[in-house]
């Protein structure tokens, strides 16, 4: 098991956003989180790299272990941890810098490479994100000038550059057109050879297409979790079935 979560509760101030979540995610698999908006799937994703730490009043109970090491143990350093867990956001969010500098950012701040080595790693990351061919002649153009789909792949390249083990994706294709979405999905399929991927999506077809395992969230609870094919063909829970068949959400 790559990621093991046990009895996780999450609070925004007095409001309980996640209740008693236990789940295990395998290495080199894609796990999809589905559920209606506000069900807690994105919040849960963000507990996996302690991104919620920066929200005032947020509080976590329970344990999240990656390779057996507890993220929320007192000795764990969020900054070091986040380097191991990359993240891609719903809205593509390149920095207002050049394409090259975007990918180089994580390498630079973490002191992972410089000079020619830096250039090589930027190239490798852009190749891994299937963007290299489109941008290799204009690496020093502003990232903001790329199309939406290219920006999102740039953000993936930026996350891959620091060589994470886990890649969290928060609705990475929700803002993209169908062709750009397809490219991202193909990329996810390739990337899972090297990474453990967790993806939040509100698109059930997408979950069915890209994931190996699917978790259904509802009102801050994990309702059902299992291999994707059986989840979509024979859900155990009535709630899951209603959601998958489009009766609510």
């Amino acid at each position: 098991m790559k990621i093991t979560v046990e009895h996780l509760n999450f609070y925004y101030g007095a409001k309980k956003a996640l209740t008693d979540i236990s789940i295990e995610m395998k290495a080199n698999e894609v796990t999809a989180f589905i559920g209606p908006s506000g069900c807690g799937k994105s919040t849960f994703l963000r507990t996996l790299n302690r991104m919620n730490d920066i929200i005032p009043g947020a509080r976590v109970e329970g344990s999240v272990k990656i390779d057996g090491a507890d993220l929320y143990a007192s000795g764990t350093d969020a900054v070091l941890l986040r380097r191991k867990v990359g993240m891609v956001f719903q809205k593509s969010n390149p920095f207002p810098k050049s394409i090259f500098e975007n990918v180089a950012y994580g390498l630079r701040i973490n002191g992972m490479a410089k000079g020619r080595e830096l250039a090589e790693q930027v190239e490798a990351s852009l190749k891994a994100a299937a963007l290299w061919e489109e941008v290799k002649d204009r690496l020093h153009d502003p990232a903001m000038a790329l199309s939406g789909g290219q920006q999102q792949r740039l953000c993936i390249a930026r996350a891959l550059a620091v060589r994470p083990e886990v890649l969290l994706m928060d609705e990475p294709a929700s803002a993209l057109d169908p062709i750009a979405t397809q490219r991202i999905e193909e990329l996810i399929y390739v990337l899972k050879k090297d990474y453990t991927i967790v993806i939040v999506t509100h698109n059930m077809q997408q979950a069915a297409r890209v994931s190996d395992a699917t978790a259904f969230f509802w009102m801050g609870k994990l309702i059902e979790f299992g291999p994707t094919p059986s989840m979509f063909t024979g859900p155990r829970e009535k709630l899951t079935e209603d959601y998958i068949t489009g009766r609510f959400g």
Partner: protein
Amino acid sequence: MTFRDWRRRALSSVMIGLSMAAVLAALIPVALILFFVLAKGIGSINWAFFTHMPAPVGEVGGGMANAILGSLTMVGLGALIAVPLGVIAGIYLSEFHGSTFASVVRFSADTLNGVPSIVIGVFVYAIFVLPVKHFSALAGGAALGVMMLPVITRTTEELLRLVPMALREGAYALGATRSRAMFTVVLPAALPGILTGIILALARTAGETAPLLFTSLNNQFWSTSLNKPMASLTVQVYTYATSPSEDWHRQAWAGALVLVMIVLVCSLAARFATRRLERMHTGH
């Protein structure tokens, strides 16, 4: 953790520390100014300060009754001009905010807001004082009005635009015209906020000195004529502060204390008012 990581962590802590130091660097002057104004001014604040005329040079005591009256008069005059103009201009800006002319007006208001107060003084001097060859309270009031106008305009615009569209649509649905919807529904909804903004603008303008220096000038005597020079709290504080008399210095501190109290009380009141308004709107 590598040495590099440790160094980055240390740098981060240092920068957070520096930003706190920056906050302190701003709090210290606030505290120092409030402390000195209070410590040096409180001793000379008494009944006479508000009711007596300035004492002649060399005599102890006296007050700033005429200057206080003058400030009130001229702020009132300014408000008389600026409040109706500003509120209506604000209505125009919020109702027709996309139009080209609205952009011109908005740009002018922001420009006017950035014009140094001394330049406003020169302008008002040229159009109100020069033609009649004498300083007057009217000119002082006009100068203060010009100072208030852009602030009131922009505050009104912003507060009107916060009124939910649904409220307007409700009025339109009942067949109200645009102007009727504005004056019967939208403006009343935003009125408490607008009044708060106006009071803040008046309080700030009451502290202006530069636009009065050569419009209303100063007056050592009790005068209620709008056509004559008029004393004001701020110009009086300036005159006293730059004089050699110790007793006048004390009066200047007392005047400054009154000015600070006006601003402080109005700002605090405005803060509480806006917080209550926010609660009303969010329903907590």
